């Protein structure tokens, strides 16, 4: 791909979004391909997401538990850990993992199809790559990533609960009671709302970059790296603004 200015990138992605919305309303709908992609993005990423969530929840509880123990705040660990996981760690970590695993996969697949003229062949056979490739992946990501986050939240809390019980001496029933007392549905929904934005951006960016790839196999490699870096940075930065927006609108306190 020729080096593009940020304006060209935003413009190109904007045009692709418009195409997706225009074409998604018309048949064919490719339900089978969407299911395949949900399997690939969702089920394929599940082990990685769950292991990361378990480790993150456990380490967070451990670090926080020993850190606040000096000030006698050990009993606050369930509250703080639960809020952090649901609002931030679950959505952000899951999205970052998906960006790395799936974003790169989508880009390399689409880019390889581009340089081997398979996308041209698809168009020449009367199929829209936007409808068949981009839309299916965006829909699959919009379904899969929030579900992955849901699992990640639960497993993260499970890890924190196990550490609280075995390392900090906080009883399981106390942990669960504090979680229920602290967590509100808005905390959960705020995290889910973020993942929807992240999922859309990951799939869109990965597809767009794949479609724009030029320069042979070296170009495929460059595109893949670009996707992972760009989506990761977007997730980090947009997380701040999304959190700020949710606080300002009173959705999250």
């Amino acid at each position: 791909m020729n080096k593009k200015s940020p304006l060209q990138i935003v413009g190109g992605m904007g045009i692709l979004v418009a195409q997706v919305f225009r074409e998604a309303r018309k048949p064919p709908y490719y339900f089978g391909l969407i299911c395949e992609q949900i399997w690939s993005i969702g089920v394929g990423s599940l082990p990685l997401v769950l292991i990361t969530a378990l480790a993150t929840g456990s380490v967070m509880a451990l670090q926080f538990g020993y850190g606040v123990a000096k000030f006698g705040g050990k009993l606050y660990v369930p509250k703080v850990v639960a809020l952090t996981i649901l609002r931030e760690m679950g959505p952000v970590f899951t999205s970052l993992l998906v960006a790395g695993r799936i974003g790169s996969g989508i880009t390399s697949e689409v880019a390889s199809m581009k340089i081997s003229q398979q996308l041209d062949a698809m168009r020449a056979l009367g199929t829209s790559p936007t409808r068949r490739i981009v839309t299916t992946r965006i829909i699959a990501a919009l379904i899969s990533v929030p579900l992955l986050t849901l699992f990640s939240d639960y497993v993260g809390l499970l890890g924190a609960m196990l550490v609280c019980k075995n390392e900090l001496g906080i009883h399981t029933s106390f942990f669960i009671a504090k979680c229920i007392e602290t967590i509100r549905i808005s905390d959960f929904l705020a995290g889910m709302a973020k993942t929807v934005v992240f999922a859309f951006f990951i799939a869109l960016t990965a597809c767009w970059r794949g479609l724009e790839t030029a320069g042979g196999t070296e170009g495929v490699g460059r595109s893949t790296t670009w996707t992972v870096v760009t989506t990761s940075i977007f997730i980090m930065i947009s997380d701040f603004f999304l959190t700020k927006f949710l606080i300002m609108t009173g959705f999250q306190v």
Partner: protein
Amino acid sequence: MSVVLKVENICKSFGEKKVHQGITFNLHEGEILSLFGGSGSGKSLLLRSIIGLEKPDSGHIYFEDKDIPTLSEEALLDIRKKIGFVFQNGALFDSLTVAGNLAYPLKEHTKDSPQHIQEKINIMLDLVDMRNAADLLPNELSGGMQKRAGLARALMLEPKIILFDEPTAGLDPTNTRRLLDNILRLKETRHITGIFVTHDIPSALAIADSIAILYEGKIAIRDTVANIQASTDPLVGAFLNPEKTK
């Protein structure tokens, strides 16, 4: 014979480089036109423009009373079902078997039953001598087989026109002969209409009804194969007998 494709004054530039500078020709039903031209003369670009994969800067390409360059991508999808394109490298979908590649256009655009699709695939595989390769993936095929599978896939929707983009490039004489035999068989049995872009003069002479030479962005010469072979025009000589004209 009726005109099925009308190309009028096509111009296309890439920056300063003017590739097409007013290409005009008609393609008649049942005619195979071979298109010669030097490397970079815009032969493949012309085929891509005809099927709407590239948009010319100006000019018209009429197919079924529709001007292809003015059509939206959505409208082009319908046109492309009626114009087959045989890519230089086959451009097979690498995650699908040969049979899967052949089934693709039928699954996309028809409501044929799986049994009917299988029957059509078998007929087409017989036509290109690839019955035994149905379950192979593209990376398990030789270059010649990939091109023949690409030809078979382009024919699945029974298009009105077939565009061949250097189908014999890079093939050994045996595979070239085999591919040409397949095309000749299609010409005899299905009376296909097409444009055959190539550098391979003997192949072009073997299957074409007429020949056009693309030179300096225009169709410099267009005539029947017999007239071209008898021509004393130095430009024709440069393509047909490059050794003699040196």
